[in-house]
């Protein structure tokens, strides 16, 4: 943002202090309750705002993955599966409280490692992550009411691979329900954002969580691949790109592992001509510029009724001109750094294609820092449904604006995407909101708001946005199996899972030991 130096709006710097961060120069793998060196080549994690190294991070190879899964299996068999729900709940409550106690530290670490503004990590990521643990802590002794019948069983060892856009929050979404349901966990954070997961490991030590119940292994894609393909894993949960999700689905198929995928999106934000216009503008802004647009459920396609198109664009541009892009640790920053050079490259590529395809590109006049990865908030007008920027997930601060004339056309255009994660509807007319929401094929639909999350509310996608739900009672069910009773459907499922594993072992893909372990888990 370019204000004159005498301008009040050129707010004096208000940086959050990093003094309370007590980081180690290098971090190991968190396995069986302790940090230990990895057998892979360590890598550095950098701050995307400055490109400076924050710490060196261990990398897990296949042997480390094996150790971690074995630790999780042991903890499952000996401790966690035998513990009462109320005792598991006590640990979860303890973790939640410790996260609140260390909230400031976690927020600073998250902004440093991810590049997101401190106001977002402080006011959204960390409080929500703690809320997720509080919510599922309450479920731990009430699993009979989770919707899978009385006395449901945990699945066993859960392999969880999470993305870099909401590092700690995605960790909470994965670990909290898994532990509440009685599973043990091996989690791999994203390569570019391992920091808060490692601080979380310290919190687990503080909470005295039994060793091996949660294991956190760091590394690149190959580590994640080894983890989800490990034969002694009963459940795979992945959040990330549709391409990787597809690979995982393929490799997990036929193994009997339960799978949930939360993948990409190209959310439609539909603004009708009777919308509360000022709030709609705010919703468009937070829909696509929140977290630099690194949000799978971002409202990256604006569908605006043609009769108010020009007015909405005028107002949107005026509002975008007040966005402050810069230092993620400054408390007045609205838009932080792009998470990685790789992601910046992709955003640039797709934006250039947008221009080549004939869409009109606009960004406010804003000075970007010299070092680090930055991309100014951008909107494209004159976009057609056939343009790539209207179809491909940009995963950056880039909005494509399309128009519609009637509600039917809005619905048709909103659904015309291989994705189906989120959508927004802006209208003052309640009946229209309900009617349109009913016809949108998206997992989450917001009315007169956007990007609101709550642990009690299930979240997930249609079509290529994935399957399974996270959050709420539904998120719990993803980590539970019905109690096996003679003749029940669950038993049939267990038998077919066994058959699948038997077949796998004859193909020498998994070891005998692993097949035996799975047999035990599916009992």
């Amino acid at each position, binding site marked *: 943002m370019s204000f004159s130096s005498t*301008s*009040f*709006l*050129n*707010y*004096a*710097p*208000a940086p959050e202090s990093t003094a309370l961060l007590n980081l180690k120069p290098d971090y190991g793998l968190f396995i069986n309750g302790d940090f230990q060196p990895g057998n892979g080549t360590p890598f550095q994690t950098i701050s995307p705002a400055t490109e400076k190294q924050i710490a060196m991070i261990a990398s897990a190879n296949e042997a480390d993955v094996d150790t971690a899964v074995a630790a999780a299996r042991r903890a499952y068999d000996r401790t966690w599966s035998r513990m009462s729900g109320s005792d598991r709940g006590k640990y979860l409550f303890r973790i939640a409280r410790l996260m609140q106690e260390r909230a400031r530290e976690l927020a600073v670490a998250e902004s440093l490692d991810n590049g997101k503004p401190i*106001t977002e990590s402080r*006011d959204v990521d960390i409080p929500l992550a703690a809320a997720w643990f509080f919510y599922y802590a309450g479920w731990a002794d009430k699993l009979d009411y989770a919707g899978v019948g009385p006395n449901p069983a945990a699945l066993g060892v859960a392999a969880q691979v999470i993305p870099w856009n909401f590092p700690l929050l995605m960790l909470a979404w994965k670990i909290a329900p898994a532990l509440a349901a009685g599973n043990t966990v091996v989690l791999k954070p994203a390569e570019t954002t391992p920091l808060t997961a490692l601080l979380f490991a310290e919190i687990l030590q503080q909470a005295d969580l039994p060793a091996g119940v949660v294991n956190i292994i760091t590394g690149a894609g190959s580590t994640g691949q080894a983890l989800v393909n490990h034969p002694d894993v009963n459940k795979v949960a992945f959040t990330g790109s549709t391409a990787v999700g597809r690979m995982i689905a393929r490799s997990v198929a036929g193994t009997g592992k339960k799978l949930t995928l939360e993948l990409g999106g190209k959310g439609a934000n539909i603004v009708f001509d*009777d*919308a*509360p*216009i*000022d*709030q709609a503008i*705010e*919703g468009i802004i937070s829909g696509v510029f929140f977290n630099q647009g690194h949000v799978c459920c971002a409202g990256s396609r604006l569908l605006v009724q043609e009769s108010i198109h020009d007015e909405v664009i005028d107002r949107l541009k005026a509002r975008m001109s*007040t966005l402050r892009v810069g230092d993620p640790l400054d*408390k*007045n920053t609205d838009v932080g750094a792009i998470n990685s050079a790789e992601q910046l490259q992709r955003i640039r590529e797709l934006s250039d294609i947008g221009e080549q395809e004939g869409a009109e590109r606009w960004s406010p006049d804003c000075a970007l820092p010299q070092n680090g990865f930055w991309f100014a908030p951008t909107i494209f007008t004159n976009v057609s449904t056939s343009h790539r920027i209207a179809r491909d997930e940009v995963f950056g601060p880039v909005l494509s604006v399309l128009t519609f004339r009637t509600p039917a056309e809005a619905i048709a255009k909103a659904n015309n995407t291989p994705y189906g994660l989120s959508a927004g509807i802006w209208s*003052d007319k309640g009946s229209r909101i309900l009617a349109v929401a009913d016809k949108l094929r998206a997992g989450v639909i917001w009315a*007169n*708001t956007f990007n609101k999350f709550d642990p009690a509310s299930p979240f997930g996608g249609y079509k290529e946005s994935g399957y399974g739900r996270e959050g709420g009672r539904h998120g719990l069910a993803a980590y539970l199996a019905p109690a096996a009773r003679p003749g029940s459907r669950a038993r049939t499922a267990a038998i077919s899972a066994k058959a699948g594993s038997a077949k796998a072992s004859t193909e020498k893909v998994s070891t005998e030991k692993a097949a035996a372990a799975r047999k035990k888990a599916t009992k």
Partner: protein
Amino acid sequence: MTSPASAELATRERTTTLLGGEATDANLRRYLHGIPGIDAVGLEARAAGLGTRSIKTSSKRWAIDTIISLIDLTTLEGADTHGKVRSLVSKAVSPDPSSPDCPRVAAVCVYGDMVSVAVEALGAAHSARTPETPDAGIRVAAVATAFPSGRASLAVKLADVADAVSAGADEIDMVIDRGAFLSGRYGQVYDEIVAVKAACARADGADAHLKVILETGELNTYDNVRRASWLAILAGGDFIKTSTGKVAPAATLPVTLSMLEVVRDWHRLTGVKIGVKPAGGIRTSKDAIKYLVTVAETVGEEWLTPQLFRFGASSLLNDVLLQRQKMTTGHYSGPDYVTID
């Protein structure tokens, strides 16, 4: 100078153009109800977001002095006396006697019968009122039109205004007829504001500035606040003001934000700048800074002058002075180090 009659005519003509007809209940209703609605949750979320701006060091220093220069230092008590008003005036002229560079407040705001006392007490410090130096000196604002309830005949209200204006008031803070507004008699509210505006004409040819108090606490919904804001501006108000201070809730950040949005839209539509005055309930520097941020990020920082933005407050000034002393000396003093007025 245009005559009051021709100014009134111009206002009515502008309204007729915008409405496509006379300012009748039906036409006003059609116009005001055609304005996009407000989503309360979204508005409040935006206000809360603006409230998280972190204003530090040099920005804070500027904000503190700006807040002082935007205050309408107010006393509106049944127990007001000449002595009380003179004390208020001396505080307005010299908010912090220990700090000569401390700015003066924008105006003192009193009941109509105290206007002459305030004018006399201000003496040379009173606003020069010349077009060349509109801000030189402190102005005298008077509440009028059967403040705070507004429950009197139009003749009584107009006499109230004329009385204050002839006593030397530079600004009139009128109240709208909330009863008429809530029962849909928009034409009546409009006509009253137009008539009060005409009564603001002074003998010297200048107009007393008209601030229109909406009493947002009684309008209850943000949609009502937005419509009343448009109505007051259509009828020729120079300022729209949230509250009398006698009804809770008085000024809130979301209400003020919604009024600023109207002012912004009116400026886009006509090029005319209207002022905004939140009044009542703003007691701390921290709160007041949130308002400055909201003004700057909604209508632009050119609104942060006494011609376009005011705080209606009494206890706010001392909290700001404490902050100001703290920024100068580096430590907090106490309430005994600022004067009571």
